[in-house]
């Protein structure tokens, strides 16, 4: 058993945060408690400094940066194509979504056209990735409130999605499959059948989780009324994604600012006005069903044709041309050594990631490397709401609140 002194934080870090805690903490009436960064329910390496009055949270001070890898700085030192592999590592549950955002920024900057087949495949993969990400959220969220079997079921389904990603790209997670101007290469012939099989079985599986959790009294009592987020607070804190939609807004970039041809698909944006963790749970569950709908429609209209733009100044030629075409060989060599040089200027591209608005600010100085890349990641913004959500709740509810904000620390720290 540890003594109470060991639980408290050291005096050095106390100095640093003393303007953030209440006066009662300075007088020693309340306890300061470290949660994380190695606590399993913090979903990565998030450290929370909690000021507790008994079991009640008075203040919560998130401390991030344990997963900071300097991606923005590193991207400045690589060519546009080579920097793309780093985008996978930002939000490691939304890899194709990150690739998509980055490629959209480059396509906007260079005015590249993407062939229709590539657009449709992008949508299918982005929606599958959304399902996979929500499955991880559901799995860990349920596990945090002690529903263990859901965790294993969700990972079974996620595995099927990772298998699809492996099928198309050779990688389960860090795919780098979406490239500026299209895709790395066309999908293999069995792609359609595998995705169709998955989409056929998956809705029944969501119903199964629904049956396990939605009306489960234990689950409901842990989530209902926990972490109320009024709409005006959500907007003031710049919260986006399912969290904002569970607070009554229907803001979804796929609807309001369609990209990659999302305007062709019929789907609903689930919303709720309940503003609590349970509402956010319902919204995300419904989003998985809608993603299946989008992916199904996309699969049904999958056109034939090329999957890469034939603008050779930006997009490397297919491998098959290298043996016969001198120009293709020159382009290949130039693009993979020096890289392409977009015009001078800055662009901002955004997509709807499973967590909210994921955007990249890309500035070019006319050289082969990005001059400045800034990732506006949804987790970074959404995490700031945690101190507001947690006020007055019990310590046990902290794990629910971390789960319901659905953060990915790679996305927060970059």
């Amino acid at each position: 058993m540890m003594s109470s002194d060991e639980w408290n934080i050291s005096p050095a870090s106390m100095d640093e945060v003393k303007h953030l805690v209440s006066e009662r903490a300075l007088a020693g009436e309340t306890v300061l408690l470290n949660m994380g960064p190695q606590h399993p329910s913090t979903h990565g390496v998030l450290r929370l400094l909690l000021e507790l009055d008994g079991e009640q949270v008075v203040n919560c001070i998130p401390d991030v940066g344990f997963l900071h890898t300097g991606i923005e700085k590193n991207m400045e030192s690589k060519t546009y194509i080579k920097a793309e592999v780093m985008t996978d590592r930002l939000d490691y549950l939304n890899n194709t979504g990150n690739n998509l955002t980055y490629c959209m920024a480059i396509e906007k900057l260079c005015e590249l056209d993407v062939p229709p087949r590539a657009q449709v495949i992008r949508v299918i993969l982005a929606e599958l990735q959304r399902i996979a990400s929500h499955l991880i959220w559901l799995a860990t969220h349920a596990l945090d409130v002690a529903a263990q079997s859901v965790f294993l079921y969700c990972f079974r389904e996620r595995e099927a999605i990772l298998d699809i990603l492996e099928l198309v790209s050779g990688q389960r997670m860090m795919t780098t499959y979406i490239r500026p101007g299209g895709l790395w290469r066309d999908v293999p012939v069995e792609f359609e059948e595998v995705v169709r099989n998955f989409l056929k079985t998956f809705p029944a599986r969501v119903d199964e989780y629904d049956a396990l959790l939605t009306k489960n009294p234990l689950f409901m009592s842990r989530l209902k009324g926990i972490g109320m987020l009024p709409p005006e607070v959500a907007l003031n804190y710049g919260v986006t994604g399912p969290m904002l939609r569970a607070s009554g807004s229907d803001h979804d970039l796929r609807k309001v600012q369609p990209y990659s041809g999302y305007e062709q698909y019929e789907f609903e944006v689930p919303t709720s006005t309940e503003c609590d963790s349970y509402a956010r749970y319902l919204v995300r569950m419904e989003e998985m069903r809608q993603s299946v709908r989008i992916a199904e429609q996309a699969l049904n209209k999958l056109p034939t044709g090329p999957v890469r733009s034939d603008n050779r100044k930006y997009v490397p030629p297919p491998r098959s041309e290298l043996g016969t075409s001198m120009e293709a060989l020159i382009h290949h060599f130039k693009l993979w050594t020096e890289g392409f040089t977009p015009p001078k200027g800055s662009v901002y591209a955004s997509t709807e990631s499973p967590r909210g608005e994921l955007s990249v600010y890309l500035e070019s100085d006319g050289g082969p490397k990005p001059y400045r890349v800034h990732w506006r990641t949804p987790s970074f913004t959404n995490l700031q709401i945690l101190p507001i959500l947690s006020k007055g709740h019990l310590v046990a509810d902290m794990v629910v609140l971390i789960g319901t904000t659905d953060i990915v620390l790679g996305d927060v720290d970059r």
Partner: protein
Amino acid sequence: MDEHIQSVVTVFSERFGTGVYEFRGEVSLILTSDRIVAACQSLRDEFDFELLTEETAVDYWPEQTPRFHLVYRLRSLKHNTIIGLRMPVDGNDPTIPSLIGLYANANWFERELWDMFGIHFEGHPDLRRVVMPEDWVGHPLRKDYPLGYEEVQYTFNFDEIDARKPYAKE
């Protein structure tokens, strides 16, 4: 240009004398740092830009003075528009007013700017480093900050380099 954005551009060039920069259909207003709070206040209250989506900076050292450009991006859900603000900031002890009173999520954006660029925000209640360790020296995203790599130590300069190496010392 979208009607809503057009009206913002017209009003702002009259009221704040802002310049306009348009590239690939994205509109940015260029203004000076003493106007930023008033401008954002007016964007939020008059023109319904409810969300501060992004606040970041670009370092133009050594080619340009002033050295930094701060880049803000505000989104209006009501009108479904997005607008950028660019603000040149001098590199010599850069200090600009904080937006935290208008948009609460400016908190961490500004902490990140302090951390990465060394830009100081007046009126920010909690200006600590956010992702780098609190005892870190330097601001990594500045262009004069090297990407990394360890300095090679020789016998003649071992102690000199060792003294400024960023690892834990006793």
